[in-house]
């Protein structure tokens, strides 16, 4: 009996064609979503929209307080979470041997990463806003977000630190470096691109988070004048504008600003990393 055979060249063509198609679908979905939002939103993004306060619940006016609120809440969250996360990662990978303690900390971080953001919001509301008496404020919101992004920063930093060849550490210690000098000058310096990727990802996640900030930072439309003021972030403003049917054009415009901000942030991080990589000669 004759075996039906397909030539390897043909299967190769099919495989490549299939992968191109699937990659194309992924890309098309991304482009479609972005284009849909930008087409509906960008015409409404004007200078006055960016610089003025909203009027009549956001039906008119701009989104300046939300832009400021977003950067305050997300920026402060990352400012709090980054040092804690990086320090934890350094401790886990450089200062302890693998054991029960590191396993427990790592397991805890992984569990934390899997918790839905609304649960973080509920915790932040009960703990920061009520128990600590911080109320619905920029501070409550950013501390809650800090807890939420902490696992991401820990794990990405840890991976970046582990990717630094152990021979670098031996060289540094062999030249008379202390453990801390070795960590600071060699390990962290080499792991910086990876660590900053994690931090930028966390910043993006903080900017786009909705549920957790609604319960902790509140949804006040006014300009936050201190860290104890309530503030509405862009993502939450978008949610409320569309959910309450207040103004779809302004909702799309807000979303456009949000998307462009995150895109710009990623590009900036990418440029910084490239510059750093060229500087160290890789």
């Amino acid at each position, binding site marked *: 009996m004759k075996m039906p055979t397909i030539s390897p060249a043909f299967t190769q063509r099919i495989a490549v064609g299939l992968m191109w198609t699937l990659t194309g679908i992924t890309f098309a979905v991304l482009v479609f979503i972005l284009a849909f939002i930008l087409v509906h939103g960008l015409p409404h993004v004007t200078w006055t929209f960016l610089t003025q306060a909203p009027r009549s619940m956001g039906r008119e006016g701009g989104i300046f307080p939300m832009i400021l609120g977003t950067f305050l809440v997300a920026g402060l969250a990352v400012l709090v979470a980054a040092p804690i996360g990086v320090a934890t990662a350094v401790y886990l990978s450089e200062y302890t041997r693998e054991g029960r303690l590191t396993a427990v900390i790592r397991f805890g971080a992984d569990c934390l990463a899997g918790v839905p953001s609304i649960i973080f919001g509920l915790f932040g509301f009960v703990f920061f806003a009520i128990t600590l008496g911080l109320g619905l404020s920029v501070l409550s919101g950013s501390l809650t977000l800090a807890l939420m992004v902490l696992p991401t920063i820990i794990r990405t930093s840890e991976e970046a630190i582990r990717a630094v060849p152990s*021979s*670098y550490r*031996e060289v540094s210690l062999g*030249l*008379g470096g202390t453990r801390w000098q070795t960590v600071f*000058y060699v390990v962290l310096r*080499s792991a910086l691109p990876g660590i900053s990727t994690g931090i930028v990802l966390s910043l993006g996640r903080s900017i786009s988070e909705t549920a957790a900030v609604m319960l902790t930072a509140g949804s006040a439309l006014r300009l936050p004048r201190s860290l104890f003021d309530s503030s509405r972030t862009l993502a939450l403003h978008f949610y409320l504008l569309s959910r309450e049917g207040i103004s779809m054009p302004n909702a799309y415009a807000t979303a456009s600003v949000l998307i462009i901000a995150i895109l710009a942030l990623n590009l900036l991080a990418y440029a910084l990393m490239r510059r750093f990589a060229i500087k*160290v000669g890789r």
Partner: protein
Amino acid sequence: MQTATATIRAQGFTASFDGQPAVRGLDLELFPRERLAIIGPARSGKTTFLRSLNRLNDLLPGFTHSGKILRDGKDIYAAGVDVAELRRKVGMVYATPVPLPWSIYDNLAYGLRLAGIRERSRLDERMEAALGYAFLWNEVKDRLHEPANVLSGGQQQRLCIARVLMLEPEVLVLDEPCSGLDPISTAKIEDALVALKEKHSIVLVTNNTKQAARASDRTAFFLLGALIEVGPTAQLFTRPTQKQTNDYLMGQFG
């Protein structure tokens, strides 16, 4: 007589990992301005001994030791020894060159900067001397601020030697420094060792018995963690006193 003058002296030194000895009951001296080669087959404890000299083994899990290693008459494993200072005095070059991912200049300056020496003039002065000893000055003097990893493998290894020399160590320990290098680079490094023994004591671990014969004053033969024989290189290679040494040199095993 010679006891007093030995730069480094191992006395009944045993190093173990998880209770398994890698080096057993070692008695070995290193004298000022000599090149001591250590040869032996794989798993003979050469590298373990070398890494015990600057306490780099301390970093490995399960490492324990007994016996003593004396430097200038003092046990380097005694409590209160400044390990960073020890490592500056016993400089180590590894089997594969490991330039840190920085410029040539920063690689060379790193050791001194760690010790708190940052004046440009002192760094530059030592750099020229160290690169000169490593026969690298002419090849890199015009591009000190280029990344170190654009250098060839042989140049990188000489850079690593120069990086250690920046600290003006008493002892230079090299762990198979030429294992990945071409014959011309190897020759340059061996030439550098000749020049360096004017000021430093050198321990050279090598898998290449010909290199030991060319580039050392005394040779020690290790087998399965024990020192079998040590003597002037010419003598050990022509008239070894132990049968195992002879067998190894004749290529019977290893």
